[in-house]
Structure formats: structure tokens, C-alpha cells
């Protein structure tokens, strides 16, 4: 196993860890606005690290450029979607949970 493969699997493992953490957070956190943070973790840290790890294992330039494009699109679209979602929820009157839930 070369150093590149080890580094790649280390990155993929970190990405999988973050994805699982975010998913658990999605289930456990109490409020919609806190859940957007959890979902954002899976999209940015989880997906980003996993794609970087796969990039180190790419066989050809075509594969590498496609992975970079997927990463770029995810970087553009998932924060925008999260922002639009939170914006719409706020305008619709969904109140964030402040203080302890009774």
C-alpha cells in the first residue's frame, strides 16, 4: 500500500466519520435550524473529504476532473440550498428554539 493509498483511505474514513456524525445529529438535534447545521456538516466535511480521498485514487485525468467538478458543484449548491431553506423557514414564521425545551 503506497503512501498515496493510505492518505486516500484516511481522508475517506474521516469523511465517512463526519457523514455519520451529521446523520446522527440530524436525528438527535432538537430544532430545525440546528438540524441544518448537521446536514451542512455531511455536505461540506463529509462529502468534501470523501471526494478528496477518491481524488487521490483517481486513475486518469478524466476521472480526476470529473471528481473536481462534482466537488465544485457540491460546494456551490449545498450552502445555497441550506441558506434558501433557512431563509424560507424564517420568513414562514418558524421560530428557532431558544432556551431549554420544556
Amino acid at each position, binding site marked *: 500500500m503506497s503512501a498515496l493509498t493510505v492518505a486516500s483511505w484516511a481522508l475517506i474514513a474521516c469523511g465517512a466519520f463526519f457523514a455519520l456524525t451529521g446523520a446522527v445529529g440530524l436525528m438527535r438535534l432538537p430544532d430545525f435550524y440546528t438540524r441544518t447545521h448537521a*446536514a451542512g456538516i455531511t455536505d461540506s466535511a463529509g462529502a468534501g473529504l470523501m471526494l478528496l480521498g477518491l481524488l487521490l485514487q483517481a486513475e486518469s485525468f478524466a476521472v480526476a476532473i470529473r471528481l473536481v467538478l*462534482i466537488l465544485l458543484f457540491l460546494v456551490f449548491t449545498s450552502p445555497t440550498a441550506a441558506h434558501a431553506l433557512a431563509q424560507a423557514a424564517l420568513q414562514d414564521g418558524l421560530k428557532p428554539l431558544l432556551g431549554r425545551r420544556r
Partner: protein
Amino acid sequence: MWLGLMLAILVTMALALTRALLGPTLYDRILAINMFGTKTVLFIAAAGFMAGRPDFLDIALVYALINFIGTVAVLKLSHYGELSPAEDLDGDDI
């Protein structure tokens, strides 16, 4: 190792689906389904690498775009009540 990665992604997808089925408000559901979509992108990319067929990445790219468009559509509808409200652009072209 690939099995571990796929299982992690699948568990994430299953948890997102649970939130989509449970989530008390509509926005919880939209959030969970958006997350499911991006995890599917990762699943396709990992499946492509595992099977040694890197042309699956085109499909992953399409999902990433389609997921975004679907989320925007649902937000527009649930917010405005219709898909295309009359928006007068205020003229600041960026």
C-alpha cells in the same frame, strides 16, 4: 474497505430517510431529502470506483444538479403557493 464506506453512506441515507418520514415540519423533510440526494451522489461515485467503472461519475454530477433544482422548486412552491411569482427585478445585475 469499500464495504465500510458503502455501509457508512447507506446508514447516513437511512437516517436521512427517517428524518424525512418523522420530521414534524415540512422544512425538516425538505432538508432531509436534500441530504439524501447529496449522499446518493457520493454513493454513485463510490459504487463507480468499487466496480472499476469511473463513467458513473457523470451520473453523480447529474444528481448533484437535479437535487438542487428539486429543492429550489419545493421551496418556491411552499413559500409562494405557486411556481412562478411575478418578481420585478430591482435592476442590480451582478
